[in-house]
């Protein structure tokens, strides 16, 4: 089967690390580039992390640095969840590769032209890089086959009552992406929350030794400790991994097409992805919204990932 050419726009990020490792292990994705953006932690961490992961996971992909802040809002980061360094304190070996000279948006455009309309984007951080690409290169739209994004929620959010972190960080960027006309799959919290892996499931998943065990176990141990500190149920949601899985294994989520727009003005609702489920606005659907997720399927894919790194 032909591999899907994909650019992973990311903010590694603990779940980003799982997601990128999963992407590599699938054998189904031709990772054309990593384009880090400020998000879970600042670009000063996400960019070196992307570079280090590129080397550690042997992706051989160009890494193009992206935006170090959102389009308009002030920068917000979440080191509590991801650790000060973004990888839950895991220190990866110093990378031998270097950053592309071109920034993320130029790398994305270059690849989009080269792939002649076949390129997909998996956007698992705030959408700043993608929005800047669309603003600088409006002609890129027919060249992107699909954007699969981790972000948003039609239901309950996590940064505010209704806003999910990636979108809340840069709602204006999400607005640009939603209005672009490019096919979009939105993997939001409604779906990712259904893939909560318990501590027991994570321990079982990571029990076999594999080449990247220090990374995966380090992140999981960080998260376990973090949850314990906060008195929350032990376990983890690998939001970004679900989005990556959805790129090559669409059956891992169930989507429905809806019209969606991003709230950028309401002070209470800023960053909410407003999905017109009751079709009150009678507008053409622009987003395939993940309504639910198949937790067992994702778990199986992650088990395959661990097995892949055992060889």
């Amino acid at each position: 089967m032909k591999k899907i050419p994909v650019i992973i726009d990311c903010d590694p990020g603990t779940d980003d690390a799982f997601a990128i490792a999963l992407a590599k292990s699938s054998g189904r994705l031709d990772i054309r580039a990593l384009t880090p953006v400020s998000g879970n932690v600042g670009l000063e961490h996400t960019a070196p992390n992307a570079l280090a992961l590129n080397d550690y996971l042997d992706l051989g992909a160009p890494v193009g640095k992206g935006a170090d802040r959102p389009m308009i809002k002030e920068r917000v980061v979440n080191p509590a969840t991801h650790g000060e360094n973004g990888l839950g304190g895991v220190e990866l070996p110093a990378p031998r590769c270097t950053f592309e000279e071109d920034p993320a948006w130029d790398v994305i455009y270059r690849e989009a032209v080269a792939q002649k309309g076949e390129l997909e984007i998996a956007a698992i951080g705030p959408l700043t890089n993608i929005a800047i690409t669309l603003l600088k290169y409006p002609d890129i739209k027919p060249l992107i086959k699909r954007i699969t994004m981790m972000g948003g929620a039609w239901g309950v959010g996590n940064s505010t009552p209704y806003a999910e972190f990636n979108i809340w960080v840069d709602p204006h960027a999400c607005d640009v992406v939603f209005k672009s006309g490019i096919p979009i799959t939105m993997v939001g919290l409604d779906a990712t929350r259904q893939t909560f892996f318990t501590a027991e499931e994570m321990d079982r998943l990571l029990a076999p030794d594999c080449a990247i065990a220090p990374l995966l176990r380090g992140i999981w141990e960080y998260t376990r400790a973090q949850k314990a500190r906060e008195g929350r149920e032990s376990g983890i949601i690998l939001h970004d991994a679900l989005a990556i899985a959805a790129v090559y294994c669409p059956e891992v989520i169930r989507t429905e097409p809806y019209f969606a727009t991003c709230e950028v003005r309401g002070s209470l609702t800023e960053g909410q992805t407003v999905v017109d489920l009751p079709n009150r606005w009678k507008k053409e659907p622009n987003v395939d919204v993940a309504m639910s997720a198949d937790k067992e399927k994702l778990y199986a894919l992650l088990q395959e990932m661990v097995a892949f790194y055992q060889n």
Partner: protein
Amino acid sequence: MRGQEGRPIPILLDVDTGIDDALALLYLLGEPRARLLGITAMEGSVPLAQVARNTLAILQLCGREDIPVALGAKKPLLGQFSPSGKGAIHGENGLGDVSIPDPVRQPEPCRAVELMARLIEESTEKVTVVAVAAMTNLATFLLCYPHLKGKIGQLVLMGGAAWCRGNFSPVAEANIGRDPEAAQIVFSAGIPIKLAGLDVTYKAYATAAEREAWRDCGTRAGRFAWEMFVHYASFYEGAPGCALHDPLAAAWALDEALVKSLPAHLEADLCGRSTRGATVVDAGGARTGCPCNALVGVEVDREAFAHRLLAALRRLP
């Protein structure tokens, strides 16, 4: 700021030509203290292609086909343009329906932001950007090339209405109102800003006699300027003259003393139900406690301005 005494100042101009844009362009072409590096175009009262055509035609009229022109945004950063009050004032063709020969030259094959980046990178000194359209191109540039911010010496913007009514909505001026998010990105970029808003540009008017002096100054450009303003002036009947919004921004870029201004903290309102696109100006940052990011123009030495403008038109072919 050099200029008055020293070498000419390198300038990038962003336009949506536009009658007063055209005059701003003529002024910069005829002003020895300015060195126009390039022009970027933005969709405005006329479609982008027409903006480019107008700009190239004026450059051709003045024999300045060495100056590159590149096409920029057709839409604001978010969504579509909402209907603007600008419309009729610039005429069908954007130049008061004055016909000038079609340009031979085409716009540059690159995008507006790429031209800006190239010219700024190539410049050995800091560049002044004069933006007299909605700020979409400028904001996109700042998003794409944050590392080049330091090479922009100043931004001189025609836009906003600090203490006077707007012309796009009751409180918003058109260049801000048409793309408030872009304006806010520009305002918060950390680059020194001169804001020539309606507060001062309405005071920078040209009387009928002054416009007749353009006509009679003996150059093609002067006559063309006068001709365009015949249409424009019909919107200013009863006023002492017609406002030269964009030319004032261009002139202020070269001459500090021309405009009296207040340092202020400047923001664009993005969320208001009826105030979206308003420029919220806090003189001295006194009310918000925020640092001043702009000089907001309040008074103009109108006669000196009129004099400069006429002198510039005289120097053109």
